[in-house]
């Protein structure tokens, strides 16, 4: 899984925000604000990653168990899929 081309991540008013650009902004004209773990997952997905590796990334940073990490990953991927920024 990978973030499609056409999204920029920037901090605005202290909050990380994802904004679609180009063709992506025609399909999804909103914006997405991320928390800290969202930024971690986003950056991993910019490089390309899978469900297990994303959970590993969360486990390396946060004191959560694997089941929790996987459920966070699934929820995040579901959100990104809905707005069409993942391929």
């Amino acid at each position: 899984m990978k973030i499609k081309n056409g999204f920029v991540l920037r901090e605005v008013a202290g909050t990380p925000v994802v904004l679609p650009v180009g063709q992506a902004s025609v399909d999804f004209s909103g914006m997405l604000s991320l928390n800290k773990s969202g930024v971690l997952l986003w950056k991993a997905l910019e490089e390309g990653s899978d469900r297990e590796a994303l959970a590993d990334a969360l486990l390396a940073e946060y004191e959560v168990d694997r089941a929790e990490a996987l459920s966070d990953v699934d929820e995040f991927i579901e959100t990104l899929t809905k707005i069409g920024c993942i391929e």
Partner: protein
Amino acid sequence: MDGNNSILYCRIADLIAEIPAEGGLAPLCAGYAIDSADSPDIVVRASDYHTPTKFAATKETVAYMESGFQFYRQLLRFNGFYIHSSAVAYEGRAYLFSGPSGMGKSTHTRLWQSTFGEEAKIFNDDKPVLRRIDGRWYAYGTPWCGKNHININMKVPLGGICFLKQAEENRIRRLGSMEALQRLLSQTLRKRLNTEEAARLLSHVDKLIQEIPIFELENRPEPAAALLSYETMRRSAEEIGL
């Protein structure tokens, strides 16, 4: 001179712009004309105009929309962007009333005019420019002023921005930074930006949110709503020295 192929030289928002006259732009640009320009900041090219494929558009509409798109896109390089709004200048400050079409932007600034008289000047009714210059925000009139042709070439220190919502009662509140960001991004140039331009836009909006008070006014189209927005916005502009 052949009016169809001539170039207009303008000073818009303190930037030198070269704009093709074709498609009826000359009258809109008249208040911004300068004699000539050796090194324009912004160049609009008719050869880059896109003609929409999904609906029929006249040559005039295409020229108006596309010249605006090119101007506002290049404006991002000069600490500036537009907010889709009706802009009124009063007591030395600019107040912008924004929101989706049909939200009563023009109605509200006309209420300012009828309530405060001739001193309240509507200087743009669609896409005024905001620019941050030496740490201060200014609003400017532009030729892209909307269908009512309310178009005054002015530069006014920005006092505040207010998003409008129709309601049964008049009520105003300051927006939090994420709410303000969402509203601002929904009423500015978003489509057809590249990554660098989008990053610039976010950085300008980030500063704007930190430096300019942004409100939501739930309102009925009546003078009391104009008084409420004026008193609230003037007070907070004064408090932070705008």
